[in-house]
């Protein structure tokens, strides 16, 4: 239980045109401990892709908050999620990131579990002189209380008392559809995972993905290179999809994009982009339009940064990235990142996608390091001080309307709120959705 009252942390007064966040959300270790408990271990989080365990007995491991988990496909093909800890003494029963195993034998005392989590052997049980209490206990791997899949995206909750996954994802499912429908065979993670850390709060990443305002300020060095490459049209360097689009340029005219926010903290910011050959998806533009309609096809070519609160982000801009946010401390975060791509795309499209990805998204590339260094600069400024309130959640307030707009209607999307942006709108009011979801999950932990 924290000493803070919610109103001291989030100043949410729509009628007065006020929305402010206290720096303590980024810098207080006690609040961070509550976040682990009430947000990451207290509700739905993204845990991986079904494609990471395709065959019977395939498994992969991970963490929900601080709790080790294993996702395993049973002999008969059913995916399940378990706590990756032996009921006996707590040892992780699987140590690898992924693999295939019909049986998992605990490395400590050889208790054995099958791929459906059932206990198949307790070593020397009959000679063990166990009491009646032990025999009454469940010796199988503990199931993660809630586990579900939406179109290949896997989610789980350590807290059983949560809405159904369909209710949780709500309208944001239609945005996951725009990812999953890029191929009739679905999507896959390109081999090769990239992980990096930064010394700042996890919510810096949460916000930055949806922050159109920073692009021309934080990334001018990258933008300059894109512009030069577009001018020179050299063959041996990577041309970016961003080079030929206008949504981020200060002098663009008319609506350039905007934001949608949804219940439970999910948000999208998006920019208008044409159906152009700069995107690897172009090769199947006609096929997609035939399969799911022109409107949804056209939306797939828009720049889209989607957050499924609290830890999944899918960024489709310079390329296509799936990232998972793993908070480690109030001032330390690990990012797990993959290139997500439609199955069955041509070798040439895949190559282009990968090259665009490495340039922009990698911590070894030309854009992400400018983000992560800025997060760390922000973290320094989050130290407790006389003026606790940040001024970073105020843009777009008077442009925000209830419900959707013409662009969401095109694909039958019903957001809770939306902003249709001009080039310099750069809405920040979509972040309110994050913090209202934060407040809902954290309520029980505050005074």
């Amino acid at each position: 239980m924290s000493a803070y009252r919610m109103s001291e942390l989030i100043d949410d007064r729509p009628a007065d045109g006020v929305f402010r966040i206290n720096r303590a959300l980024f810098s207080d270790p006690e609040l961070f401990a509550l976040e682990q408990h009430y947000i990451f271990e207290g509700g739905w989080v993204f845990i991986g892709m079904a494609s990471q365990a395709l065959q019977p007995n395939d498994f992969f491991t991970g963490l929900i908050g601080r709790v080790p988990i294993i996702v395993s496909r049973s002999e008969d093909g059913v995916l399940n999620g378990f706590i990756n800890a032996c009921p006996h003494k707590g040892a992780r029963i699987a140590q690898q990131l992924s693999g295939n195993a019909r049986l998992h034998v605990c490395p400590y005392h050889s208790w054995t579990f099958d791929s459906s989590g059932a206990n198949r052997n307790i070593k020397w049980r009959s000679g063990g002189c166990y009491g009646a209490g032990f025999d009454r206990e469940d010796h199988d791997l503990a199931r993660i209380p809630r586990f579900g899949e939406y179109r290949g995206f896997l989610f789980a909750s350590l807290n059983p008392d949560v809405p159904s996954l369909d209710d949780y994802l709500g309208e944001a499912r239609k945005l996951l559809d725009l990812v999953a429908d890029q191929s009739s065979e679905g999507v896959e993670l390109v081999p090769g995972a990239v992980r990096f850390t930064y010394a700042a709060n996890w919510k810096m990443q949460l916000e930055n993905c949806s922050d159109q305002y920073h692009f021309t300020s934080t990334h001018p060095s990258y933008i300059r290179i894109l512009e030069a490459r577009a001018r020179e049209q050299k063959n041996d360097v990577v041309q970016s999809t961003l080079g030929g689009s206008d949504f981020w340029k200060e002098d663009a005219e008319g609506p350039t994009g905007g934001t949608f926010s949804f219940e439970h903290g999910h948000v999208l910011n998006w920019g208008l982009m044409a159906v152009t050959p700069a995107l690897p998806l172009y090769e199947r533009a006609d096929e997609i339009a035939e399969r799911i309609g022109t409107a949804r096809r056209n939306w797939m070519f828009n720049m889209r940064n989607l957050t499924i609160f609290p830890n999944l982000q899918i960024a489709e801009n310079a390329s296509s990235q799936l990232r998972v946010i793993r908070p480690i401390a109030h001032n330390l975060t690990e990012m797990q990142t993959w290139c997500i791509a439609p199955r069955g795309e041509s070798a040439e499209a895949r190559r282009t996608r990968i090259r665009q990805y490495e340039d922009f998204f990698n911590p070894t590339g030309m854009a992400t390091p400018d983000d992560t260094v800025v997060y760390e600069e922000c973290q320094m400024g989050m130290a407790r001080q006389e003026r606790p309130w940040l001024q970073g959640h105020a843009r777009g307030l008077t442009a925000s309307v209830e419900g959707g707009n013409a662009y969401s209607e095109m694909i039958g999307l019903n957001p809770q709120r939306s902003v249709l942006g001009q080039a310099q709108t750069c809405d920040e009011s979509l972040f309110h959705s994050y913090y209202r979801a934060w407040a809902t999950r954290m309520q029980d932990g505050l005074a």
Partner: protein
Amino acid sequence: MTLLTDREAELFLYGEALLLDEGRYDAWVELFTPDAIFWMPAWKSESEQTSDPDSELSLIYYHGRSNLEDRIKRIRSGMSVASKVRLRVMHALSNVMVIARAPGTATISSCFIVNLVDVRAGRTHAFFGRYEHELVHGESGWRISRKVIRLLNDVVPTLLDIYSI
């Protein structure tokens, strides 16, 4: 045609490392042939690296020296906060072995540890792994036609630029 000696191989690598340590990027990039490959694969499991840069992800994959020139432009642009305060770096190389040698070409394997001081953030760390250099001999001496950087500790603390490995 010229045959690369063991000693020449060592001095070539040490020379390249010094240029990176001292931030002498123009001289460093001159060590590469115009169509050189500069490749740092990613890891796809605990023990296996990606091996096909066209169908698998790399940390860095460049085919063509002009990509390295772009990186240098970004470092010098004054428009990249990540490049504003250059990390202090020291490349230490060892286990240098010429593993293939023919007139005018050579392949060298080596180990590297790069110690870094991130002065801005007030922290010290290290990147380590193995290099594979393929060299070709031309009018201006030995040049790198392909450099593979096998980074073992691949969880990157905040940033990794071309001078950090």
